[in-house]
């Protein structure tokens, strides 16, 4: 199951963060990189608590840190930038 989070941060090139819950193994790398954006829920899966909290760079670093590529980043033109 994919969960989408719409980002509306001004000046950001990222429009959407998607977490693929079937891929997430709860390693919490994303939480360690961007605690303002992510937390683990009761099922030990990553969820976005605030899609507007971090810079674009931090969001991409957090997505890249995921060992199972469970975080997908979409830009303003609906293009997938990562992975």
């Amino acid at each position, binding site marked *: 199951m994919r969960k989408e989070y719409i980002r509306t941060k001004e000046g950001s090139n990222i429009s959407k963060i998607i977490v693929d819950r079937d891929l997430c193994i709860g*390693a919490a790398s994303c939480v360690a990189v961007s605690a303002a954006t992510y937390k683990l829920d009761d099922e030990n899966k990553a969820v976005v608590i605030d899609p507007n909290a971090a810079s674009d760079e931090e969001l991409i670093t957090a997505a890249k840190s995921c060992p*199972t590529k469970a975080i997908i980043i979409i830009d303003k033109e609906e293009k997938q930038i990562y992975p």
Partner: protein
Amino acid sequence: MKKFKYLIIGGGVSGTTAAETIRNSDKDSLVAIINEEPYTAYSRVTLSKHEFYDKEWEEDKIWFRTPDWYLKENIELIAGKVAVNLDHDKKLVILNDGEEIEYEKLLLAIGSCAKKWMVPGSDKKNIFVLRNLDDAKAIRDKMPTAKNAIAVGGGFVSFEMCHILRQFNIDTTLVLRESYYWEPVLSEDEAAVVEEALIKNEVKILKNSEINEVVGGEFAEGVILKDGTKIDCDIIIPGIGVACSLNWLKSPGLETNRGILTNEYLETNIPDIWASGDVAEFNDLILEERVQLGNWLNAQQQGRVAGLNMAGKKEPFRMVTSYSTNGFGVTICFVGDVRPEADRTMISRGSLESKSWARLLVKDGEIIGATIINRTPELAAISKLIATDFKISGHEKELADPDFDLKKVI
């Protein structure tokens, strides 16, 4: 002879991230990765997750990078070969098939190795030490027919493997040399939360126990403990930690301890050689000591920093890394340095009743690491306390109070 401007030994997440980072700042130079396993980069941490062993699991999910990626990035992958010698005067790496490869800049991202389990009979079949993809596949093939398993050792891989074994309804006995699970990384009370979950899920735990011998013919059929007890089994999974022989690197004069010594830029003592990931024993600017950390995030982020520095930047590695795992409904998370050395004191926040603990390790009045059981929401706050060199003096009571909101002291 092949020659690369950037040569990376190790095709795991650290080496792969380094290659990617180099390619981002240097579009034209030759980059190669030597990978011992005959594969592209994959998600090693998934190998001890129950998802990998599920029937429904799609094999493709394991790949962190596919062959197209190496082509697209113009990174040569030399897979299935092992670097066995280094001549840093001539800037040569020699492979196990005798091939010599010349480099300008070299990264050692060689990871760590699972410790070999050495008792009489430990060379029999059906004994699986989990380190790489082939090991995991062999375990996965065996699981559906196994009836009785012995897991050895009290680390987190054993914990994860017990969960997987029980998922297959395999009778599981965990043999611990220590007097409780994960001594001395956890206290006995903290360990009780983990032990309770294991017992509730019908894992038998034998404490203060050691295996003297594995019995059977070609295949392991049982073990004999030190006290003479015999336990039947058809699968044994030892998880007794990691250690690597770095002898091939010591001889050319590379400074090593348990790992390869580096400064905060991940430079070794030899010019143009860097080290990153599990093998790097680096100068940690936050913890203010040399540490070697074996977690995915550390490996990945160090790969990035090593790549930047190899491509000409001068960036120190500075990050509090952590790793989290889950089994039987218990979430265990490690942050920073969790080694219970003599110069550290502990602060425990939690209780047996709440089945949750955070164990903070304190050195010179600052928190340097933590083991967090069933309190993952505190991960961010604890990481921040470590990163900001928070002085605990005057806050000891608050830190030990499980109901105190850690965000209040940040």
